[in-house]
């Protein structure tokens, strides 16, 4: 008994309200974030049961999932019946007294992009949202994870959740990334090497030199896909970069409370002798640009690799590739830059830097969707929108957009899309659409070439 604890132990222990029979615990939830896809269902069901949101000041909602992203948008959306989700969420949020970032609010954006922008997620806090990519926000040293609507109701009514503690895993990226290699390539490498179920039953701490070297936006990209690794969540110990990012944000503490918070946040790291249930180490300098070839994110290879000889038939059949086929050079129909994985200002800057003075290939439909209205404004202030548009990309209002298909807008049936999103499931981006996930750099290089391409050849 050393008393040495992991970051996960600290996050967990500091929120246990009561131990429950059978080994689970009642865990305090500091923040709840809803979106319009399921927000009305959760809030209305709570109200119908005669229950109240215990502390509305700590519950937020946003319209991001099915809201239109074409310019000049209103409550109208291309998803059939979609408008009702927006108007009912608005009404339910108002009735419950929670803060809503509405369709044309200057702070609107994808939930996992705006929560950090507003300082809603903080180190050491627990934050849940009925969305599996909530783990993105673990980048701030928070315990943030996706839940179902019933659990959202539970958290809003009681300020807690009933949970069994997952095991602790540490994934260390040692050494340094090579030039042009991104956090997206890091997480895809982990998925390629350890599979889409590799983190099952675990809460994953990302650590190591290459992780600490990432800026906050890169850390969010890394944590974003912890759910693709089947982990309960992913997180990174907060450091000076984390604190600098948060200072002055709207919901972040100020003055004495800021100093008090800092003192407490500085304790948030795994103790030197802390023991993990599982440890993985990856040499960051060995990472290359990565692209998925199949229909789960673990089915991913390096840009210079070929589809594995032991690839299963079903995903190959869907994606239309053969064993032994090189991924580089596969013709594409469309390119998508967006989603809570890769739609922040730094992603758009790096993409624009490669696009500058170039044009995308004929016949490629290319779309860029900033992750938040703030990202969009900041990008426009730097003229990035013009670079995208001049190169042949559409420039959109912020939202989830074509990261997923809700029955509205999609890529043409059967088309092949290279995408900065996080899921390459069958029909994720539209009926029979074939998705290859990759970094913004790889998406841009491919859009220019009209086929899957190595961004290293553009730099």
């Amino acid at each position: 008994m050393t008393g040495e604890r992991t970051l996960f132990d600290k996050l967990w222990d500091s929120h246990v309200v009561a131990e429950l029979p059978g080994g689970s615990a009642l865990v305090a939830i500091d923040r709840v974030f809803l979106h319009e896809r399921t927000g009305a269902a959760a809030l209305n069901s709570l109200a119908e049961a005669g229950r109240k949101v215990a502390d509305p000041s700590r519950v937020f909602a946003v319209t991001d999932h099915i809201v239109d992203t074409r310019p000049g948008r209103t409550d109208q959306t291309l998803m059939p019946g979609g408008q009702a989700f927006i108007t009912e969420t608005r009404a339910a949020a108002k009735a419950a007294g929670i803060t809503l970032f509405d369709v044309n609010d200057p702070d609107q954006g994808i939930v996992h992009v705006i929560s950090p922008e507003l300082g809603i997620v903080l180190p050491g806090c627990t934050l849940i949202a009925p969305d599996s990519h909530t783990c993105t926000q673990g980048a701030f040293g928070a315990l943030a994870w996706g839940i179902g609507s019933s659990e959202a109701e539970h958290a809003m009514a009681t300020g807690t959740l009933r949970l069994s503690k997952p095991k602790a895993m540490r994934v260390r990226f040692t050494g340094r990334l090579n030039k042009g290699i991104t956090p997206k390539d890091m997480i895809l490498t982990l998925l390629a090497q350890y599979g889409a179920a590799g983190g099952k039953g675990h809460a994953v701490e990302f650590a190591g030199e290459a992780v600490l070297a990432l800026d906050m936006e890169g850390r969010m990209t890394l944590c974003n896909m912890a759910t693709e690794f089947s982990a309960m969540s992913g997180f990174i110990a907060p450091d000076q970069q984390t604190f600098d990012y948060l200072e002055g944000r709207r919901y972040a503490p100020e003055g004495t409370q800021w100093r008090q918070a800092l003192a407490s946040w500085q304790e948030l790291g795994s103790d030197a002798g802390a023991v993990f249930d599982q440890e993985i180490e990856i040499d960051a300098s060995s990472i290359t640009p990565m692209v998925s070839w199949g229909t789960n994110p673990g089915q991913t290879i390096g840009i210079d690799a070929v589809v594995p000889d032991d690839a299963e038939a079903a995903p190959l059949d869907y994606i239309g590739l053969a064993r032994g086929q090189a991924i580089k050079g596969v013709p594409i129909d469309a390119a998508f830059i967006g989603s809570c994985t890769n739609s922040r200002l730094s992603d758009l800057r790096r993409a624009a830097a490669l696009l500058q003075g170039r044009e995308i290939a004929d016949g490629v439909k290319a779309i860029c969707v900033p992750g938040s209205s703030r990202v969009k404004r900041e990008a426009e202030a730097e003229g990035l929108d013009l670079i995208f548009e001049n190169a042949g990309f559409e420039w959109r209002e912020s939202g989830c957009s074509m990261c997923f298909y809700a029955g509205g807008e999609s890529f043409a049936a059967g088309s092949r899309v290279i995408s900065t999103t996080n899921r390459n499931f069958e029909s994720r981006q539209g009926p029979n659409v074939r998705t290859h996930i990759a970094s913004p750099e790889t998406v841009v290089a491919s859009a220019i070439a009209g086929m899957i391409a190595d961004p290293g050849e553009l730099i």
Partner: protein
Amino acid sequence: MAEPFTILTSLPMPLIRDNIDTDQIIPSREMKSTGKTSLADGLFAGWRYKEIGGREPDPEFVMNDPAYADSTVILGGANFGSGSSREHAVWALAEYGFRAVIAQSFAPIFAGNCVRNGILPAMLDSAAITAVERSGAPVTIDLQARTISIASGQSWTFPIEEEAKAMLLEGLDAIDLSLKLADNISTWQDADRSARPWIYLGVNT
């Protein structure tokens, strides 16, 4: 609040594929309702109907086989319910009439959603699942005893957390259970409010 789950006998509908994700259970485009109902028509829509968005049953899909019309149990593969956390997948299953899924393993969010909606997620190993499928006969699930048996006399035990078991057996609502601890929660929050005042946005602004 769900119907208590005690003993259930049903011919299980075999859908033994690995990684059936929530988008396959109910495609996003079928989540047309802003509530928890009117979702059953969208259940397994991508496989169940001939065309995307259509309603003409595909006779090839097991759900459209009249033999399974009254099944209340699904026999699945590994990692059942992976992908998006959408609870609509479970609401659609419940509304259609399913009360249990027997599978090799479950995605955790999905399994939690099942329990909260009165559906039993029961894990059996693949040999047992194959044996159940081959028997082609009804299974009897006894939650109290944690057993799944078939008429031949073969029987297996499945694991389930005590709390999930109690909730399903009694049809208990998790919120009611937790609200019984309201005193613990407010004591904890009072202490936390002085330790971490910045977490409490309503009282510090």
